[in-house]
């Protein structure tokens, strides 16, 4: 298995505070990886370092074996797209314009390929099923529609790697499912490597090939969903007791039932 993105001895400090301490990880190419862990364990920080949004760290981030910092910012944006949390657009921006802005890394003053741009934008909107919303203002969309519009913008970059920071936060269950299925399809049909921070362990169980568990600035575990997401691990990492159910259709459900009192709830 080849790793497309990896970190070696990565340490990140934010305002003197250590957020990640000498972690090393490999992310498999064309797979879906979920990063989970309790609040404040450094999930978003890891994603920001992986994406190059934060370059202020010790250690290395490697994209296809090369240092992330050796790529020009635009060439990096053609290979890797990130959707941070809480993105906001100008009030009068339309969905079509927003998705079109995703073509920025493919354009320059001297060269624009109008046809390639149009095709990429159409493809991105089709994948996220927002063609009908093209002329709507982003500000007037529902939460689920807006999230799909932002994902479409990231897809218009035509990235090989898609990084998502809690893409289902604030969405109702139907829209959560919709986003996860879009992500799954992008990975299975177009071989886009997906790395996402998730807080719902059942989403992680259902939609990720690989799970990375962070705890107290370090990698606590990495492996397949079935191997990693055990009641024992969840009790240690999140401090919750979890019961496991299997539906008649074979889907596994992890249900947190109580807090583990002894040993502290951290």
């Amino acid at each position: 298995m080849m790793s497309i993105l990896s970190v070696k001895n990565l340490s990140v400090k934010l305002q003197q505070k250590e957020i990640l301490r000498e972690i090393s990880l490999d992310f498999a190419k064309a797979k879906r990886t979920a990063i989970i862990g309790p609040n404040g364990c450094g999930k978003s920080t890891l994603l920001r370092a992986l994406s190059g949004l934060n370059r202020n760290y010790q250690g290395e981030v490697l994209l296809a074996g090369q240092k992330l910092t050796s790529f020009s910012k635009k060439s990096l944006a053609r290979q890797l797209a990130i959707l941070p949390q809480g993105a906001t657009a100008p009030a009068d921006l339309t969905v079509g314009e927003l998705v079109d802005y995703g073509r920025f890394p493919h354009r320059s003053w001297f060269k624009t390929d109008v046809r390639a741009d149009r095709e990429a934008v159409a493809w991105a909107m089709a994948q996220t099923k927002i063609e009908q919303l093209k002329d709507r203002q982003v500000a007037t969309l529902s939460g689920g529609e807006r999230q799909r519009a932002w994902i479409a913008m990231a897809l218009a970059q035509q990235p090989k790697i898609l990084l998502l920071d809690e893409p289902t936060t604030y969405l109702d269950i139907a829209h959560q499912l919709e986003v996860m299925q879009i992500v799954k399809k992008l990975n299975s049909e177009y071989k886009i490597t997906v790395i996402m921070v998730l807080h719902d362990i059942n989403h992680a169980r259902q939609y990720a090939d690989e799970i990375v568990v962070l705890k107290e600035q370090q990698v606590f575990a990495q492996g397949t969903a079935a191997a990693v997401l055990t009641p024992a691990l969840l009790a240690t990492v999140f401090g919750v007791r979890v019961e496991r159910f299997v539906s008649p259709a074979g889907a596994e459900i992890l249900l947190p039932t109580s807090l583990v009192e002894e040993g502290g709830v951290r």
Partner: protein
Amino acid sequence: MQNSGSENKRFGVVAAKWRILVLLVFAILALTAGLGSLMQGAVPVSSEEIWQAIQGIPGTNQQIILNIRLPRTIVAALVGMNLALAGAILQAVMKNPLADPHIIGISSGAGLTGIIIMILYPSLEQLIAPAAFLGAMAAAIAIYILAWKGGIRPVRIILAGVAVSAFFGAGISGLLIFYSDRVHGALMWLVGGLSARSWPHVEIILPYALAGLVLALLGARHLNILQLGDEIAKGLGLRVEATRLALTAVAAMLAASAVSVVGLLGFVGLVVPHVVRLLLGSDYRFLLPGAALFGMALVMASDTFARTAFAPTELPVGIIMAIIGAPFFLFLLRREL
């Protein structure tokens, strides 16, 4: 539901046509305002006389048209364009709907260094514009640094701007008091006026206006991306800090050249981009040309009004702009913050 796809497509085409139509209307407004500015005044002249004068056919009012009205109208147009573009750029760069070179103190910075040259080194007149640029840039950077605290927030920029503006304003007032004998029409300059602006002033502002316009249009796509916020912009491969600095410099240059010829003319950079935004949306590829044209129209029309409404008394155009602009600022303050 079934044919809404084609309806959307049609809507997209309509949107594009609408934008071009609005730009045309702005162009017609600018031309009308320019013509009105040439025709109205102490001596009214007809459009035929203007046409003859421009062709070089001698006439009774040729001197008035060519040496008084025409240069003044051109200065008004360029000042309007520059301030409108500077405001539009600053609004994206500072992520602040209320950014305007006057309100956030960039004009005061330009004013202080400009007036230092004007008063202390009057023989170096050609250095007024470059000096004003340095002052504007210093003010912009000061505001940015003062407002920065793990990110920039609109309210902090306005407050930092008020402080910076007061600081430079005190310098200007001090200079004007110490050297009150040396500054003719200082009052006019403080509120921004076009009185007695002529060809030398056109020469001062024109190169900066042309360069600024070209650079602003080249930055239109970058401004669009900056509006999405730093995180998204970085993710799209924009070199955010470098872009922000370069575009701030363009805005400072545009504002400074305007300040060096008309003084502290306020609110153009606030009112114009917002009106244009309402009609054209916030795509800078359309917003910038729209703001340039509407800025020209507004300042030319306001100046015509300012010098004819209370004739023979001539008001500085800055008073008209403040009467329009201050309520508009309050309206935006209530809506946006």
